[in-house]
């Protein structure tokens, strides 16, 4: 439903504003890599613009920091609606490995609402292209949450029925696990 809504709201080219709120510049380089002729995001109509007032999409890299969160919020509010936000990299998605520092607020979804997440540190240019193509409805989502359960204990417990006689010494059947 959300995708149909997006396709209806953005029938033509997406203009992209590129906001870094305190990342390490790794994701920025990958985003600029996507715009090169090798990956060529411009065949989907994606164009980098310098001002958030011209943009439809904001690409956010880096966690929300205490010093830049207000500026990020202002850039988001300056964009004309409808607007979508991509969180690129693990800092923007979850706060990064310095998530509990005093100057890091956390993921950018605490400051601005995020529509699409592209995890990775940094994500490959293909991953960013995949996220953009997912937003435009060209590909399908490939990840689902997984719940795994153990059927039996992986290490041998004391079960007398698992004991076997081997050269005058009782050993467990599942001993090779240990």
């Amino acid at each position, binding site marked *: 439903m959300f995708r149909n809504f997006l396709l209806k709201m953005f029938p033509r080219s997406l203009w992209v504003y590129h906001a870094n709120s305190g990342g390490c510049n790794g994701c920025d380089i990958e985003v600029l890599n996507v715009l090169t002729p090798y990956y060529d995001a411009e065949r989907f109509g994606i164009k980098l613009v310098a001002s958030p007032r011209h943009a439809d999409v904001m690409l956010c890299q880096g966690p929300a920091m205490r010093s830049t969160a207000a500026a990020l919020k202002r850039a988001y509010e300056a964009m004309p609606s409808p607007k979508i936000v991509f969180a690129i990299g*693990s800092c923007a998605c979850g706060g990064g490995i310095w998530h509990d520092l005093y100057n890091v607020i956390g993921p950018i979804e605490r400051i601005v609402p995020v529509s699409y997440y592209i995890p990775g540190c940094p994500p490959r240019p293909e991953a960013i292209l995949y996220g953009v193509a997912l937003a435009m409805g060209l590909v399908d989502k490939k990840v689902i949450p997984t719940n795994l359960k153990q059927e039996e204990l992986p290490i041998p417990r004391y079960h007398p029925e698992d004991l076997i006689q081997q050269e005058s010494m009782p050993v467990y059947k599942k001993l090779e696990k240990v």
Partner: protein
Amino acid sequence: MSFISKIRETLICLKAGRVTLPYPYQPRPAPEKFRGRPIFDASKCIGCAGCANNCPAREILVLDICQEIRILKYLGRRCTYCGRCADVCPENAITMSKDYETATNNIADIQQKLELFMSTCQRCGRCFKEPSPLEQLKLKGYRFDDLANERWIFKSKSYLDNFKVSDDIHIELD
């Protein structure tokens, strides 16, 4: 002279061909040493929580819901794919896959949750008296589970009073 150079330039441009990848329409395999997202194998895991203690992003969470069952949860949102968990795992239950197409519109999609059997003391059935290394970490303030409200709480060491920003980092279950 300039005309000839233009012709030469045209020939060079024709020779270059097309370099753009047809990526979203055709798959592109990752290179040999690429580390994608980790895949957990529940049948091999012994629940030692070494991965949780070694994760630099504190992204693998451990919760003992009862005597016999331990839940290991990989949230995946902060993961930097450093591969330390796969490196430290004694049973090789974690493999770094080459899966990089993890873009999603719901961040809970990349979670992995493992329900593990833990054995108790064969004699008394209760847990051990001495605190385990994990509980020692808990006492130091690395992590804490709020069982009553069913959520995970990180107790950060960078806690400062009167600062709402650097409050404890709360992670909701879903």
